[in-house]
């Protein structure tokens, strides 16, 4: 497999702010790579450097083996992108904007393939191309950028929170498009803070925090790092002491809750069977939990700040 995107020790400073602080990211060809982190963690800065819109302060970044700052034009012939905050020209209609961006990326005006894919995408995204840019809502501006990105084939799609502002139906359309370009062999870097979306679409996930990658791997690999949640009906914890591999056993509202290391779940099952448990639920760790492993302390701080009782005491 060839590497499409590689950064090593990438840093970017805006004045005294370290937006990126030694970011190492590898995206292999054909992957759909989830790039996960909350706002302000450095996702958009990374993407700007990969697109040659910003210059790295230090470290290295290559896209298709080239320097994204120096060879921006050559690289952009192979890249389609949706920026994080889509703006459009107020006096151009949506259809005109899509055509303009596609033509800048090399689409021919009369090319039937392009025209068909533009029509198909407008239909699928339920997009009215006749309205002027100033009349579009955030979701519609997002659709302009998505249709322009998917209407012309690319080798690499760099998408910065592409579904923010879309309703759930449109998210399904978006997922279908990702599946289509993946099947065509393209690589996708998908930045997002919507965990379920990343969970559904991505082969690999990198979690970014404060300008560094703190976790990277396939979802299966990442799941090893957390425990599976097990729960069943139980009146009290009298008979629960003998379950092998169980952690954090507690009984709450008539249900017993415990966690088991995800790769040891098979050893726990016979014990559960011997107990004759009712209402058994086994939940694999969600990405949310993975994410909270790295951002849990931020959450605690945020909760403390928003809890009026904590402030007054």
């Amino acid at each position: 497999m060839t590497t499409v995107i590689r950064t090593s020790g990438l840093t970017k400073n805006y004045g005294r702010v370290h937006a990126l602080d030694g970011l190492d990211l590898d995206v292999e060809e054909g992957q759909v790579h989830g790039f996960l982190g909350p706002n302000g963690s450095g996702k958009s800065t990374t993407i700007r450097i990969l697109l040659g819109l910003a210059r790295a302060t230090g470290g290295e970044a290559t896209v298709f083996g080239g320097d994204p700052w120096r060879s921006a034009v050559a690289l952009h012939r192979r890249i389609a992108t949706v920026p994080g905050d889509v703006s459009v020209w107020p006096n151009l209609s949506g259809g005109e904007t899509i055509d303009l961006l596609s033509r800048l990326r090399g689409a021919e005006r009369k090319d039937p393939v392009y025209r068909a894919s533009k029509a198909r995408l407008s239909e699928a995204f339920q997009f009215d191309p006749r309205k002027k840019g100033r009349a579009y809502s955030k979701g519609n501006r997002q659709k302009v950028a998505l249709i322009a990105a998917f209407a012309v084939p690319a080798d690499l799609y760099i998408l910065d929170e592409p579904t923010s502002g879309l309703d759930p139906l449109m998210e399904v359309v978006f997922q279908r498009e990702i599946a289509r370009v993946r099947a065509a062999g393209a690589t996708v870097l998908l930045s997002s803070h919507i965990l379920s979306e990343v969970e559904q679409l991505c082969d690999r996930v990198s979690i970014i925090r404060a300008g560094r990658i703190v976790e990277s791997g396939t979802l299966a690999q990442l799941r090893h790092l957390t425990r599976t949640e097990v729960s069943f009906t139980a009146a009290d914890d009298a008979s629960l002491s003998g379950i092998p591999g169980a952690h954090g056993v507690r009984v709450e509202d008539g249900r017993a809750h415990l966690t088991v290391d995800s790769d040891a779940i098979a050893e726990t099952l016979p014990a559960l069977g011997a107990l004759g448990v009712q209402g058994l639920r086994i939940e694999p760790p969600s990405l949310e939990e993975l994410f909270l492993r790295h951002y849990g302390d931020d959450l605690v701080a945020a909760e403390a700040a928003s809890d009026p009782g904590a402030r007054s005491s």
Partner: protein
Amino acid sequence: MNGFAALYHQRLRRDGLQLALWIGITALLAFAAYAGVKDSFGTEQDRQSLLVAAIANPVILLFRGLPSGAGEGAFIAFLIVPFLCMLAAFMSSFLAVRHTRADEETGRAELVGGTPAGRMLPTVVTLVHGLIANLVLALLTALALVAAGLEAAGSFVVGSAAGVVGVFFLGLGLLTSQLMRTSRGANTVSVTVLLVTYLLAGIGNALGTPSDDLQRMESSWLTWLSPFGWAENSRPFADDDLWPLVLCTLVGIAFAVAAIALQSIRDVGSSFVAERAGRVDAHAALGSMTALVWRLSAGSIIGWAIGGAISGLLATTLASVVEEVSAENPSIEAVLNQMMASQGSIEQGLLTTFFVMIGILAACAGVQTITRARQEETHGTAELVLATPIDRVRWLFDFVIVGFAAIVIILAAGLGAASVGIALNDGDPDLYRSAVTVALGQVVAASVFLVLTALVFVLAPRGTIAVGWSLVLLAAVIGLFGPIFGMPENVTWLSPVAAAPVPVTDGVDVRGLWWLLGAIVVAGAASFGLMRRRELAAGG
């Protein structure tokens, strides 16, 4: 009533400074006009001869008011009333649209409509707000004239004339806001009506019937189709006739009532004229960055070019009038000769002065094109384009090249109109050659602003808009007024428009050309060279 007070207070807070400026400028203009007339046309005889010349020359009547005699007050009314009315008209129509359709378009109206204030109250409050603003404008304008030393009755007629035209356009703005879907659409319709009725009044006056002594003009019926014509026909200081002003007020109020009636039968956010749908597919030409910049700039370039054409026409038609006036008045001739000392004839001098003005218009268009690059960057649309195979340097180059095209178009429009003026007069080939020379010189001068603003955009993006416009303003002041204030030549030469080549008695003065060309080459090379290393600077 509580909601009324709250909404009125909100409008005052939002508009306070802006209205103070509009009203202050209108009153100041009235005050300054008096001083100007005292200076240039001190005697009754001076004024009489100018009126004779004006009535003989339709072009002047197109851009001034209605002659009603050579008395000091009536003469000032002739010179200034249309402009005072125009200021009130712009103030009022923007005010109306700002507080109705613009609020609706951005969704603020929905926020207010959800409270007990309801759908109707905001429109009513806006009407009251606009009426009060025009009342203040009328009073202060009248007081400015009284303070300058004119009699009270006529001064108040002038003030009222401006105020009632304001009320007319307040009503019109409210009405177009009901009809059109966007604030931009409503403003476009209002401003178009404003310009057309302004021209109607002027054309109607020019086609009117002069009195035997050529001191007074009776407007033709065309003038009576225009609120500006109604205002002028009150003939302040001569007849002090109030009924045309009453007519104007009634029409304005009728518009406002119609607007309120329309508001009561439509949904919030809807409009009576559906917004024109855009194209589904882009025009074949919209396929490159150059085409995009052109598309974004074309509207304003046409506007500047119309300004250039009007100035060009005046450049060659006014000369004959001025010569007529000065031939009868030795004192005026002396003043003119002092101003035009170095440039041979009055014709030549006027031509140069007007082309300096066209050069400034062209510089404005150039600067505006570069500030558009900055707006693209802060708005976020630059990112969309630069993520496609468009080189950074090429991206900036496209703005510069369209800016240069704008400069050439505007001076060509000025030159074209000036040639028409020459052909209408006597077809003097020497004057034509001079016009070509100054026009070419101003292309070079305006281009200096273009590349300097581009350089600021590359080096200090945040300063692009402020520095670009300040440069033009500074150069305009130095270039146009420097010679009159007696600034030494090496200071006025700092202004590119003043340093541009001009025809002199014995050939063409090209000394300034070299520094202009030098500045263009150096700033241009620096801009494009440094752009290669420049990141996208999105932060406002």
